[in-house]
């Protein structure tokens, strides 16, 4: 294992290594950053596959995958332009409770509507030309959406519970498009790895990244499960509490499903995820257990802050201070996840932490629950 990912320059691995190490092992999380980067990797639904051996033994796909050698410290340096590294929540400058202040954004949302509001604002203020989002589609399987207008952003609103290789949509943008991406943590990581490869042409048009909180995502056969077991076609909301049954809300009403039935549908690669709060984004947004009307909003970078402050000033979102108690709970939840990964506690499914490049001190700190959580 190499210290620091500057050494990735020396890494010579290609699509067949990606296939063998990530896809065949079941570690792929369908983030989509490798899909359509070249003609050889395609996605259908939530399945990503290498169609043909490109015969390059030094491939871009391997370098940008969030499940190959990843060093969060080095990537954080790139994002924040400084060496400090916050190992639990990632670098950030502000922490809020937030919600959309306008009905057009709060109405279609599942929780606070903050992501929709911020993305729409960035578009309408011409700070970006397009927003790459995960949208709804007939049959309710999510699809990438490249929104260029506010209505298109709104149409993509609402939480999705499954993986979706959204980042593949990036390769359909023009080089001179300024793009905002909303993604899961793995997608954010993949995008940052893409930006880190300065020799690669793609990904340099990403202006701003809004990362979502994600502790796990489900596979597409979740929708078959809903059909077969519950007889429902569409999900308007889902609540996954720490204990007790999962509550699934459909147009026909509420359904209670034991967590045991949902757990096997979790994408295997999610169990190895080290980044539940999208540490490398400009802004991170997640739901809050206590109040579905409000989101947890983490402002990380200067760019992210500029957009959030504008949103507050224009009354597109409203914010409240984030209580210390809540922050403690959030940190605990994150550290527990990281620890489980580092210890490779295979409770429900295999875990592989070998892709994580970090110094030994940091590793021990997180394994031992860390002081000053």
């Amino acid at each position, binding site marked *: 294992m190499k210290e620091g990912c500057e050494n990735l320059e020396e890494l010579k691995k290609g699509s067949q290594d990606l296939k063998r190490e990530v896809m065949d092992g079941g570690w792929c999380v369908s983030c989509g950053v490798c899909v359509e*980067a*070249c*003609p*050889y990797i395609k996605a*259908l639904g939530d399945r990503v*596959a290498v169609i*043909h051996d*490109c015969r*390059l033994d030094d491939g871009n796909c391997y370098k940008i995958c969030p499940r190959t050698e990843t060093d969060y410290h080095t990537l954080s340096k790139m994002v924040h332009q400084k060496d400090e590294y916050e190992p639990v929540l990632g670098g950030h400058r502000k922490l809020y409770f937030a919600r959309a202040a306008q009905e057009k954004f709060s109405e279609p949302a599942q929780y606070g509507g903050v992501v929709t509001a911020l993305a729409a604002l960035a578009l309408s203020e011409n700070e970006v030309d397009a927003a790459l989002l995960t949208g709804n589609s007939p049959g309710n399987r999510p699809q990438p959406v490249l929104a260029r207008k506010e209505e298109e952003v709104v149409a993509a609103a609402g939480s999705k519970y499954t993986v979706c290789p959204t980042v593949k949509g990036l390769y359909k943008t023009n080089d001179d498009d300024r793009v905002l991406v909303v993604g899961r943590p793995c997608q954010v990581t993949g995008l940052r790895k893409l930006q880190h490869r300065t020799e690669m042409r793609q990904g340099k048009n990403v202006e701003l990244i809004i990362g979502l909180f994600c502790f796990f995502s489900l596979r597409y056969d979740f929708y078959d499960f809903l059909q077969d077991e519950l007889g429902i076609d569409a999900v308007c909301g889902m609540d996954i509490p720490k204990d007790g049954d999962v509550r699934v809300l459909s147009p026909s009403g509420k359904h209670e499903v034991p967590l045991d039935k949902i757990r096997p549908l979790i994408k295997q690669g999610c169990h190895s995820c080290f980044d539940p709060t999208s540490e490398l984004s400009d802004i991170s947004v997640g739901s809050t257990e206590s109040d579905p009307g409000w989101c947890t909003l983490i402002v990380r970078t200067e760019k992210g802050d500029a957009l959030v402050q504008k949103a507050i000033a224009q009354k597109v979102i409203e914010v409240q201070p984030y209580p210390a108690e809540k922050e403690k709970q959030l940190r605990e939840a994150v550290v527990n996840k990281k620890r489980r990964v580092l210890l490779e506690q295979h409770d429900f499914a295999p875990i592989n932490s070998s892709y994580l490049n970090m110094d030994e001190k940091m590793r021990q700190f997180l394994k031992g629950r860390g002081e000053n959580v």
Partner: protein
Amino acid sequence: MSNQNNAGTTVLMTGNEAAARGALEAGVRFCTSYPGSPAVEVADVLFSAKDVYGEWSTNEIIAFEAAAAASYAGLRAITVMKHNGLAVAADFLLSLNHAALKSGLVVVIGDDPSGHSSVNELDSRQFVRFAEVPLLEPSTIEEAREMTRYAFELSEQVGTFVIVRLVTRICHARGNVVLREIPDFPAVKPSIGKEERFRCRPPLHVDVHVRQEKAREIYEHSPFNSYSGPQSETVIVSSGPSVLYAREALQILGLEDKVGLLKLGASWPVPREFVLKTAGHAENIIFIEDIDPFIEQNIITVLAQFGGKRYKFFGQGSGHVKGEWGAGMGEMNPDQAVQALCNVFDLPNPLKAPAVPTPDGVLKEELPVRELTMCPGCPHRSSFWAIKTALELDGRDGFPLGDIGCYAMGARKASNFLLRSVFCMGSGAGMANGFGQLQNMGFDQPVIATVGDSTFFHACLPALVNARYNNADFTLVVLDNSTTAMTGFQPHAGTATPGKDSKSIMMIEDVTRGMGLETVVCDPHQLDDTVENLCRLLKKKGANVLIMRKPCALMNYRLEQRLFEVDSEKCLGDDCGCSRFCSRVFACPAIFFDESIGKAYINDTLCTGCGACATLCPRGAIYEKSFSGTEGKN
């Protein structure tokens, strides 16, 4: 050209054209065929003749049956097929021979020694012997005309159908023919008499033999059998174009005065008295012929039974004579004929290839062989990429089966050996029926059977009925390029046909939906849509159908000449990361990677303007060029 009367003129024509001319000169009125190389053009020519009914039948057995009906109704009729077509028609052929025929019925079979345009080589003469009907083998183009003309008369004399067996080196070769008159035959009203019956019954095998014996008597005096050269102790016996090779070999070796040549053209039943009379005197008999030792074994039998002395036989059996691939395999040619005689006479071979590999020259190694691939623009190339993509995305180790047609190229190296099987017409869907029943035993790999639009009508319909009836699990992918391409763009039931109302076109999806099979139609150039639909169908139980429809590029190019070009600024060459996808992986022969500029380049002498590459280039660097040379970059 062969349809005009022009009696007396000498023209250059192919063996196929000559056979057709012969049929016209005999007053043929009815011609049926299913396209099969090398004999396709026989039917092509007859279809354009006036007063002749011609049809592309859906398959060879139907063609044969229809022609037999015309013969029973009083018309001279002809049916044309290749050796595989003979196998398809076999069931009828082997029962029709039992019944007496009225009007001349001629079957033209185009064999393909060495399988230049076939998946196998078959010596149909063995089959004719099996069927116990008369056989004629032309050695020259003019004989192709003469024998076909004569065959109708012979058929009526003997009372059964006659087989004229051509080979590629007659069918596709050209030679001089002096045209004879095409007479004005009186119009015949086709009819079936009240008392006429036609059937096959086991005891009629006796009649088969009676007719064979009658044919033999006629053959004893046939002008198509002849002996030339000295009454020598060594005689060559030969048939077909091998006769000309043998003659030339004798010339090359200076043996014309030492070796006689017995040419057999009316070769089955064997004219044994003629053989004994002309060649019985010899001590050494050499046999030179294509593929099987047919003449060889027949003559050896005759001489052994009736010759009254011991002979030395030199042929495929003794190892002195070899076809292109060995004894009894591959076509005969002048080189093999010369080598055969050198083997028999223990002479050095005077024929030398001039290029002795030079240690420093280009010829120090074998010259690269050209792998066969689909034509530039072929829609199957896109279809195969869609199938490959879908199977990888499906992820269950699925595989596609192949069939006969241009898409059989998908089983070759230049297609990365995508298709797993190629046998006979319809065998892909047939085999899929078997694979489709193994699921209960743990077989969990999805199966695709690919088939062309013409092959679909020829052979697939019963396979699909079986699939529906027995609930087999597979997806039939119909590669619909709207023609019978491999044999020269003949129409079929699913395409527009000159002279037929377009309403009569049978849409494949109507047929399969009528059978109760879910059917989707896609454009193979729309990769994402095609892949999505195929993946969806692969997951479903039972049989279903995906039609990938796009016309053949060569056919299209005749209508509109489009050309595509690479924008050398947008193309990033090896910096793209696509690893030369268009030229190396998609592998259209019109695109190559120009090392001198480090970019992809489209060869305008080959490009047929299908535009598939433009949809696939990840940089959008390929655009359509307007034909006059002005640029239309997008």
